[in-house]
């Protein structure tokens, strides 16, 4: 390897030991406020309008990770937040720096991830004059932030930052933008000090609604738990597990709900929806009651909406009242504190033995088959084996495409933080920066980025960041020399008219990784699979496994567009 000095990654000094000097500028006040909020690490990229803030970072106790593209800063901050439950922070300059953050901010918005994005802005006097590197990022991000601020006075900084963190992390989390004009960052400060943290407590549920829910559950003969990402965000994982273990209700999960119940738990039947399991979709279709927990009836989960769970009454638990009734009317709505509501459900086994038996039979009948024909590596088998070998410390940071669905279908997850995926936005390029953010947040976990030959090229420059900081991220690159999921849809739904999906001229990705100073190896034959997994897990430092797979492999099962979930194609 080239001798690139490895920066010190020791944990930053505790807030108490941070420099005691009072902040003298708006920028120093921003840094002091971030530290007061407990921020230890930020991801970013400097530039003209944000230079005062970068001037305040050295010696502040704040650890800055220099990425090679601002989009990666936002994705890394997003994954840092998903892995820690705290708000992730990313920084960029005005104009192109800010617009490069935009996809990452939208990603955090779609998946309800707490994030603070701080952008430099041109000086206040130049705002609205088409100044160099001026864009209205405050306006551009408005549809994809939970809230946003344009700082007009330096003395407002403490209150704005305290509000931003409170908004980002309270209730249904989300990203908050703080646009900071350069003159405000440079202006002298005399009195302002960091304000205290002020996270709002979850709103309580109503006892009447819960009592109605309990009565309805007692009447059900075919109940199904429909688990979404809101369960983990509400801190309700243990409450859900306890309830499900004792009540014994068959459960299914959305893409972001995976891991809330362990993959191998006896009443869990996998993901529902477009690439869900046949058992999960059949159970939902036959259910007479859906207990919807922190989920929002996303179209990828429901398929044709008026054919989704046609016989089921709906009890909808969610911290966000705006999700209740948005796409499917609830018979009983329990908005508010999801954890307290689940803890309030009587946990005793329900008298639904025939339904449990039906669920078990469906689970056995439609179990995934890992005996693929041919001598090549079968990605589902690779992923299943990898997640089992990595054990409970496994964290998958996915990119977007066929491999993302295979991860959701075939990996074993023991906790929700183990599955980091761009679910709502479906943003290719998430995988490597997300893996970086997760590994920096949880250095003792076995973090593996699963990517494809399309997705990796959307943020491949971050291999340099892995190398610079020596981040021990493992990368599995499934290479089918095509945009696989688009190819699959063109094969099935566009009469085989393959349009612009052929990536025959990909570079040799192992060579590319080595050029960045990262260990890499290539495999393609089935007998190489176990050795590849062992080498990945044994390697210290960043490593890339370049895995060739059959370009004609499809993701099965599949609900065709516009069809009911019961109309799954199985091959």
């Amino acid at each position, binding site marked *: 390897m080239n001798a690139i000095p490895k920066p010190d990654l020791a944990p930053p000094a505790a807030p108490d030991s941070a420099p005691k000097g009072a902040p003298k500028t708006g920028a120093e006040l921003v840094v002091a406020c971030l530290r007061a909020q407990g921020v230890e690490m930020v991801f970013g990229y400097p530039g003209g309008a944000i230079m005062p803030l970068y001037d305040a970072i050295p010696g502040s106790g704040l650890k800055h990770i220099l990425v090679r593209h601002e989009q990666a800063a936002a994705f890394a901050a997003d994954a840092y937040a998903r892995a820690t439950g705290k708000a992730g922070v990313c920084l960029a300059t005005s104009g192109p720096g800010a617009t490069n953050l935009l996809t990452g901010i939208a990603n955090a918005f779609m998946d309800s991830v707490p994030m603070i994005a701080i952008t430099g802005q041109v000086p206040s006097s130049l705002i609205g004059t088409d100044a160099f590197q001026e864009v209205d990022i*405050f*306006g551009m991000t*408005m549809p994809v932030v939970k*809230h946003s601020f*344009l700082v007009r006075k330096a003395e407002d900084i403490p209150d704005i930052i305290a509000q931003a963190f409170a908004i980002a992390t309270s209730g249904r989390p989300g990203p908050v933008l703080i646009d900071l004009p350069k003159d405000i960052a440079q202006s002298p400060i005399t009195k302002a000090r960091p304000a205290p943290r002020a996270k709002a407590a979850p709103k309580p549920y109503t006892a009447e609604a819960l009592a109605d829910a309990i009565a309805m559950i007692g009447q059900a003969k075919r109940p199904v738990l429909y688990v979404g990402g809101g369960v983990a965000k509400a801190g309700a994982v243990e409450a859900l597990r306890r309830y499900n273990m004792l009540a014994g209700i068959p459960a299914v999960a959305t893409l972001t709900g995976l891991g809330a119940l362990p993959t191998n738990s006896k009443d869990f039947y996998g993901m529902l929806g477009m690439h869900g399991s046949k058992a999960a979709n059949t159970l939902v279709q036959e259910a007479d009651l859906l207990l919807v927990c922190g989920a929002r009836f996303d179209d990828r989960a429901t398929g044709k909406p008026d054919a989704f769970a046609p016989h089921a009454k709906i009890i909808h638990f969610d911290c966000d*009242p*705006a999700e209740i*009734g948005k796409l499917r009317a609830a018979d009983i709505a329990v908005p508010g504190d999801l954890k307290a509501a689940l803890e309030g459900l009587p946990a005793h086994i329900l008298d639904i033995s025939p339904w449990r038996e039906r669920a078990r039979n469906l689970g056995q009948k439609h179990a995934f088959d890992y005996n693929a024909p041919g001598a090549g590596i079968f990605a589902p088998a690779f992923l299943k084996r990898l997640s089992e070998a990595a054990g409970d410390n496994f964290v998958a940071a996915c990119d977007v495409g066929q491999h993302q669905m295979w991860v959701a279908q075939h990996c074993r997850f023991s906790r929700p933080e183990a599955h980091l995926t761009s679910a709502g936005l479906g943003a290719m390029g998430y995988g490597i920066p997300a893996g970086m953010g997760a590994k920096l947040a949880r250095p003792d976990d076995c973090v593996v980025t699963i990517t494809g030959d399309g997705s990796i090229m959307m943020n491949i420059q971050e291999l340099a960041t892995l190398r610079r900081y020596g981040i021990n991220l493992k990368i599995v690159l499934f290479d089918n020399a095509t945009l696989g999921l688009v190819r699959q849809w063109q094969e099935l739904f566009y009469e085989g008219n393959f349009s612009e999906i052929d990536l025959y001229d990909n570079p040799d990705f192992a060579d590319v990784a080595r050029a960045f100073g990262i260990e890499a190896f290539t495999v393609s034959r089935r007998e190489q699979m176990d050795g590849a997994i062992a080498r990945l897990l044994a390697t210290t430092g960043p490593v890339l496994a370049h895995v060739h797979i059959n370009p004609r492999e499809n993701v099965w099962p599949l609900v065709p567009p516009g069809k009911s979930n019961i109309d799954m194609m199985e091959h």
Partner: protein
Amino acid sequence: MNTQTLSVELQPAEGAVLRLIGLVERRGFEVRSINLPASTGSLRLDLGVRARDTARTIETLHRQIKRLSGVCRVSETPFTLTNSQGGGDEQNQHKSA
């Protein structure tokens, strides 16, 4: 589809009005009328809105507006702000329940 009215009380922060109107448009409604009486404190905005398709309900829009930071109150019945300077149109309107 009929035009319906929503009265919204919100803090007069930068971007507050744009944020509200943008949400209405993005969530499948067209804005058919706007009234924003002068006020010294909170703003009260009366919006006439019309759904672009039958799947959109005013109840969902109401809840989506209510969760915006800086929105204090949403009502399908016009109300009067206690701190208002009293725009001419407010004198004959009743308070919401």
